[in-house]
């Protein structure tokens, strides 16, 4: 499979990465090189093979559903590019 320039733009938008027109052609070449490389997996017969979910067999642990951490909004917000009144601030989302 190989991608065309429209697909590159669509994927960039899905990934929320702005791309310029100049970058699109370049990215198309790079993406196609990587996709061509992974294409060889098609040779492997995987009929009836279970997909890997965990490399080390383990059951996920459970813990009591209680608050065990938190109550330090200032530390949580310390690295925010913008915050107001104890909240993260973003451009207006709802008109």
């Amino acid at each position, binding site marked *: 499979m190989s991608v065309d320039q429209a697909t590159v733009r669509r994927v960039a938008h899905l990934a929320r990465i702005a791309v310029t027109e100049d970058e699109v052609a370049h990215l198309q070449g*790079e993406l196609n090189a990587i996709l061509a490389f*992974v294409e*060889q*997996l098609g040779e*492997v017969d995987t009929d009836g093979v279970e997909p890997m*979910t965990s490399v080390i067999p*383990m059951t996920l642990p459970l813990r009591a559903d209680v608050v065990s951490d938190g109550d330090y909004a200032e530390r949580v917000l*310390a690295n925010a590019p913008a915050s107001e009144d104890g909240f*993260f601030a973003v451009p207006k989302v709802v008109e």
Partner: protein
Amino acid sequence: MSHARHELTRLTLTAAHEGLSEGHFTATELTQAYLGAIEAAGDLNAYVLATPEKALEMAKASDARYAAGTAGPLEGIPLGIKDMFATEGVRTTACSNILKNFVPPYESTVTSRLWKDGAVLLGKLNQDEFAMGSSTESSAFGAAVNPWRRSGSSQPLVPGGSSGGSAAAVAAQICAGAAGTDTGGSIRQPAAFTGTVGIKPTYGRCSRWGVVAYASSLDQAGPIARSVNDAALLLRSMAGHDPKDSTSVDMPVPDYEAAVGASVKGKRIGIPREYRVDGMSPEIVALWDKGADMLRAAGAEIVDISLPHTKYALPAYYIVALAEASSNLARYDGVRYGERVAGRDIVEMYEKTRASGFGSEVRRRIMVGTYVLSAGYYDAYYLKAQKVRTLIKRDFETVFAQGVDAVLAPATPSPAFGIGEKSGADPVEMYLQDVFTVTLNMAGLPGIAVPAGLSSEGLPLGLQLIGRPFGEEGLFSLGQVIEEAAGRFEVTDRWWE
């Protein structure tokens, strides 16, 4: 360099710890020696942040604990930490512009364990941006430089990657040891390029909590050190169960140092025929044979084995790793932390922030990951790769069931290459660096890289031993046999000073 300073910095971690315990010098003196060495090594670009004040403060506390008789197992040992580990109050960037001013309000579990055992933080080490690379050239701080050079040449070489700053710093003796991370070979390949020892433990052995996430089902922390024994001491402190990482295993941590020097008599060592890849350098082939001879001489039995799906590990890895990366790196949106670039609306803000904050390799990997996970392609790529992964793991399970204790393989297809040599148009050329290392990450297995010789051009070459799940002790025993037979490899021309 001043003679007195080098007397201290050239000690292995093990020897430095003995010197401290016996009172031959103080933690403050040792730390000052390293801080001086770091200042003189700016040309290596190994550190992206030195923390001299914090280091001296921690060293002073170590000296007090020695005096009080409460010294920990790594008391007063100065370490460098890859910039993937969150360090409380100390800038942590993953060497990305998107995190260039990020100061974590928390400490990663692995580094907390090191500090609890008495280690001293010298600073944060250079790496490929978000650990995506095999040369440390994709760092937002610029490439780290290998302290090794080809005989008679002053061409700068890469220290490997992604933990290239860690490996360069250990080889240049500007830290006593380092903490790195390994997703597809990021500890073992740089260790091999710099004549140092690096171990990627079994998945789940070290907590991933507080480590910047790249590909969560593959990422593991581990040490880079000057000797097998040094690596054993570091791993014992780094490993252990952490309730904050649900994939960390609740198993006791063995005394790895006790395994160093243990007999390997009767151990069965597999030589996988599929690792003899086309175009492999004859030097690497010869080194591999030499390694088998060293283990045989120590009483191990060498057997030929087959790992038939080896060839598919790398392409499957690039699907799994990039898919997980695209998901993990979605968090960098310019809202909660990191850099923000304004836009007309929130979507444009996200897009501009991520376009400006991520470097080109990271953007490329996120986009490939996004593509393989997108509607209609999930089964063809991601699901297929996870099925191939099951087959890769099964290959190893089959040979272990046949009584093979460990697998011996080269660590890298070549010695260190020049800066700029592999950053051309085709990203796959760089990806091939990981051909011998990714299989372990795909199967969750532990692997150690140990230096075993020099190339004709005078560059270090490493061998890799792959163990059963939680078979780190066996790897330390086998690694020590190679270290004793091959010797340790120190940079003799300290050109950067």
